[in-house]
C-alpha cells in the first residue's frame, strides 16, 4: 500500500474515534483480476477489473457493526463513518464484543511468505491469451470423435491490503494467485454427455500444473465416465481421490469452529483431547508455508500465526476459536479459521492400493450432499469407478455415500502418496473401509 493509503487508514480509525467509537478496526484493500476463457479456439470471455474498498468495524461499548464501502474518498468516508457509529448505537450491548487485548498482537513471525509473484506485473494480456490458448490446444490434441466441447480458463488476481486497529494493531499483506481450469465434454450412449475437468491454483505461474498434464487428466476424467451406471447398495471400501478429499473433510472442519461449538452446533463439542479418528488422521495447520495459498502472518483478529497441530494420530488437539467466541466460552483463543491444512501422505500410489483392496469404489468427484455439523451425519453423491483387485470394472453414477464423521475417520485405513498440490488443503487420496454406498 502506498503512503496515501497508509495515511487514509489512519485517518479512518482516528475519525471513528473522534466521532464516538470506543474502538475500531479498518481494512483497506485493492485487487486486480483478469479472467480469460477459450472455447472453439477463440476467446469466449475476456474480463478485467480492479476493485477497492474499506471494511470498517465499529465498537461502541459492546455494540458492534461491520460495514463495507467501495469509495475511498474522505469526503464520502467522513459521512459513512458518522452514520455507521450512529446506527451501531441502535444495537443491543454484548459484553464480549471488543477488539482483542493488545498483548495478543505480539510475536508475529519475521518471515517472507513469498505470496506475491514478482513477475506478475510483467505478465501481459497477450501472454495470458497464449497460455489459455495452449491449455485448450493441449486438450483438443487429446481429442477423439466423442469430444463435444473443450474449454480452458485462467483467472489471476493481485491483491494488497492494510489493516489497522485503534488499539495498536497494524498489518500489511500482498499476494497473487493464478487458477487454471480445463473441461472436456464427450458423447456417451444415449443423451449422456459426461464432462471431465481438472483445475488447480498456485501463487506463481510456475506452480501451476503443466498443460499436457492437465489435458491428460481432463481427458481421462471424461473418458473414465463412459457407460457409467449404478451398482447394488452395499458396504465397500472407498478411495477418495486427492482433489476431492477437501470436500469430505469440510464436514468435519465446520464442527471445529468456535461459533458452532459455543452455539452447540458441533458434534465435536467436548471432544478435545479425545480420539476422533484412526492413527492416520493427522492434520497440521501451517499458515507460514512459503508460497502457500492460505499463508498469512496474522489472522482476522490480528493474532500472529503459527503452525498448529490440530489433530495428531486421531486425537483432536485444537479448535478454531477467535477472540469473540473465546470470550464467550471463557477459553484461550487459537485462531479463527484454517490456513494451509496438511495431512501426512502415505507411501503407496492409489493404483497399488487398489490392487490390495479387493472390491471397492474410487471416488473421483462428489455431487451435492451435505453434512450436519450438529450430529456429524453426512450424505453425499459420488462419481467414480468400481474396481476389483486393481482393475476398473465400471464407471459409477447416481450413487451416494453416507456415514457419520464421528465414525468415518476411525475407518481411515490408508493415505496415498499423492498430496494435492494445487490448493490450500494439501490432503492425499484417502482410503476408508466399510462405507455404505447406495446404488440400486
Amino acid at each position: 500500500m502506498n503512503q496515501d493509503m497508509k495515511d487514509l487508514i489512519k485517518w479512518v480509525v482516528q475519525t471513528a474515534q473522534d466521532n464516538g467509537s470506543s474502538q475500531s478496526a479498518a481494512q483497506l484493500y485493492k485487487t486486480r483480476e483478469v479472467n480469460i476463457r477459450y472455447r472453439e479456439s477463440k476467446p469466449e470471455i475476456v474480463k478485467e477489473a480492479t476493485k477497492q474498498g474499506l471494511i470498517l468495524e465499529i465498537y461502541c461499548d459492546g455494540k458492534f457493526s461491520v460495514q463495507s464501502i467501495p469509495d475511498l474518498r474522505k469526503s464520502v468516508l467522513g459521512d459513512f463513518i458518522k452514520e455507521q457509529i450512529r446506527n451501531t448505537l441502535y444495537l443491543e450491548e454484548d459484553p464480549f464484543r471488543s477488539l482483542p487485548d493488545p498483548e495478543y498482537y505480539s510475536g508475529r513471525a519475521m518471515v517472507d511468505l513469498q505470496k506475491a509473484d514478482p513477475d506478475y506485473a510483467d505478465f501481459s494480456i497477450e501472454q495470458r491469451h497464449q497460455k489459455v490458448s495452449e491449455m485448450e490446444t493441449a486438450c483438443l490434441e487429446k481429442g477423439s470423435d466423442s469430444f463435444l466441447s473443450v474449454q480452458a480458463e485462467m483467472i489471476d488476481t493481485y491483491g494488497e491490503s492494510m489493516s489497522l486497529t485503534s488499539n495498536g494493531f497494524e498489518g500489511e499483506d500482498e499476494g497473487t494467485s493464478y487458477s487454471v481450469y480445463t473441461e472436456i465434454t464427450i458423447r456417451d450412449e444415449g443423451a449422456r454427455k459426461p464432462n471431465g475437468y481438472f483445475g488447480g491454483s498456485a501463487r506463481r505461474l510456475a506452480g501451476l500444473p503443466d498443460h499436457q498434464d492437465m489435458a491428460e487428466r481432463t481427458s481421462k476424467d471424461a473418458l473414465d465416465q463412459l457407460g457409467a451406471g449404478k451398482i447394488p447398495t452395499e458396504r465397500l471400501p472407498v478411495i477418495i481421490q486427492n482433489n476431492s478429499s477437501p470436500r469430505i473433510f469440510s464436514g468435519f472442519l465446520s464442527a471445529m469452529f468456535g461459533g458452532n461449538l459455543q452455539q452447540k452446533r458441533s458434534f465435536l463439542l467436548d471432544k478435545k483431547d479425545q480420539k476422533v479418528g484412526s492413527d492416520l488422521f493427522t492434520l497440521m495447520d501451517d499458515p507460514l508455508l512459503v508460497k502457500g495459498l492460505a499463508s498469512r502472518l496474522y489472522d482476522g483478529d490480528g493474532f500472529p500465526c503459527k503452525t498448529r497441530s490440530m489433530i495428531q494420530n486421531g486425537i483432536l488437539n485444537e479448535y478454531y476459536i477467535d477472540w469473540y467466541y473465546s470470550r464467550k466460552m471463557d477459553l484461550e483463543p487459537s485462531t479463527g479459521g484454517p490456513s494451509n491444512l496438511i495431512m501426512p501422505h502415505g507411501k503407496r500410489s492409489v493404483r497399488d492400493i487398489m490392487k490390495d483392496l479387493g472390491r471397492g469404489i474410487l471416488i473421483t468427484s462428489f455431487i451435492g450432499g451435505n453434512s450436519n455439523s450438529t450430529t456429524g451425519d453426512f450424505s453425499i453423491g459420488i462419481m467414480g469407478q468400481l474396481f476389483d483387485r486393481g482393475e476398473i470394472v465400471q464407471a459409477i453414477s447416481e450413487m451416494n455415500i453416507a456415514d457419520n464423521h464421528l465414525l468415518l475417520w476411525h475407518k481411515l485405513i490408508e493415505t496415498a502418496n499423492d498430496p494435492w498440490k494445487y490448493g490450500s488443503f494439501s490432503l492425499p487420496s484417502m482410503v476408508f473401509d466399510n462405507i455404505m454406498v447406495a446404488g440400486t
Partner: protein
Amino acid sequence: MESISRRKFISGYAAATGAILISPYLSDCSQFRRDMKTKYFESEFGIDQTLCRKLLETALSRGGDFADLYFEHTTTNSLGLEDGKVNLANGNIKLGVGIRTVKGNQVGYGFTQILTGESMESAARTASSLVNTSASPVSGNFSHPDLMNYYPTDPLSMEFPVPSKIPMMQDLNDACFGLSRYVQKATVSFMDEIKHIMIVTSDGNMVEDVLPMNYLSASAIGEKDGRTERAGWNIGGRRDFSYYDDSVIKEISGKVISDLSKNFDAIQPPAGEMPVVLGPGVTGILLHEAIGHGMEADFNHKSVSIYSDMLGKKVAESFVTIIDDGTMDGYSGSLNVDDEGTHGQKTILVEDGILVSYMHDRISANHYNVKPTGNGRRESYEHIPYPRMRNTYMMPGEASSEDVIKNIRHGVYVENVGNGQVYVGQGDFSFYVPQGYLIEEGQLTAPIKDFNIMGNGPKMLENITLVANDLVMDNGGTGYCGKESQRVKVGFGLPTCQVKSLTVGGTKKTGGLS
C-alpha cells in the same frame, strides 16, 4: 467527461448507510418510489443518455454485435440475534457499472466501482478488446419502456427501521423458546436489500428498476434424552416491512420447533433405490437441479447439456408441465426486468410432457433465433449475465396427496430440501433432505433426516408417475442458485409428486423396489 459531484456521492451513500439500520432518506416514500423507478442514476450520479451513448460507442469501437451497460447501486443490511441479543449488524454497499461487448457467443467485459467518466471509459475499452474490426453503431435514441411490477411493496412500508426489526427478531427468538422446553439455543437473522439497476443497450433500450429482497430466518438447537438436534426455517422474498407480521413469526417458529421435534425421533434413513414422494413446496429444488439447469440455453447451444437434443421431444408423461416464471408477485425469483433489459415473463419449459423451450439470454436467443425469455441474470455489475432460472415449478395434477402415497409399500417422503447440485452433461443430480418420512404400506411412518437423493434428470422426468393437485410455492427468502461463480435469488414450487425410482443415500440397507 464530467466527474460525479461530491454531493451526489454523499447523497447516494448517506442513503445507503442510512438504510443499513434506519433509512431517513426514505422517509418521503412516495418520492422514493418515483425517483428510484426513473432516472435514479441520472439524478444521483449524473449518468445521462449522452454519457451512456459515449460509453457504448467506446465498447463497440472495435466492433461487436451489441454492447450494454449495467449500472447498480445496492445496499444490503443484516442483523443477527445470538444468545438472546441483537448484537451484530452487517452492511455492504455496491456501486458500479459493468460494460459488456458481445460478438456471437464471445464476451468482453470490464467493470468499475468509480462512476467517473475516465474510469468508465477504461472499463468500456476493456470490454471492446475482445474484437478487432470496424466500429459498430449505437442507436440514436433510447426508449424507456414501462415495466410491470411484480414486487408487492407498499411505498409506505419500504423502510426497515431497526427500532422495528429488533423487537420482531426478539419475538421470534422468544417464540422458539416458548414452543419447546428442549430448545437450548436459538439464532435469528433479518436481511434486507434494495438494488437499483439501470440497463442501457446499444440497440436503444434504457430501463431502470428497483428490486427489494428480504428475509427473516431462525434456527434452534435442542437437546432431548441426550440427543442434540437442529432445525431452521425462513420466510422472505421481494417484500416490504408490512409483510413481516405476527403470522410470519408464528409460521417460522412453528416450523422450526415442529422440525426440531421430528428430528429427535428420526431413525436412520434407508439406502438404495426406491420410490420417492416429494411433498409440496420447497421440494421444487428437485426441478431446479434435475431439469432446470439442463434447460438453460447456454449449456445447450454449447451441446454440453443432456437436454441439448431433446427440444420438441416427449420427455415426461402428458400430465407434467414445468414452468419458469418471473412474474409471480413477491417471490424471490421474480423480476420486472432481467439484467439485460428484457421484460419479466413466464416461460413454459415442459408442456404436457413435451420439452418446448429453453431459458434464454440475448446470446443464446440469437443462436437459436428466438426472442430472449427474460432469463439473462447476473449477481452484480461485477458479473457477466447468463441464462438463469427465476421461480421454477410444476403445474398441479389431478390426484390427491393421499393418492400419491397410498400405492407405495416401501419408499421415502421428502418434506424439506436443503441444497442440490447437477452435472448438466451427465444429467445426474442430487438433493439433500434434512427432513422426511419413511413410507410403509401407503402410510407415512417414522421421521428420517439428513440424507441425499441421487438421480438422473431425463430418467426422473420419465419416472414421474403421479402429480397431486396441491401446488405450493415456497415462500422462503434465502434460496439462491450458483452458476459461473455467481449467486442469484431463485424460487421453487411443486405439488406432491411421485417418482417411481431414485437412489436414497441413507445408512441403512433395505430391500429393493416396492
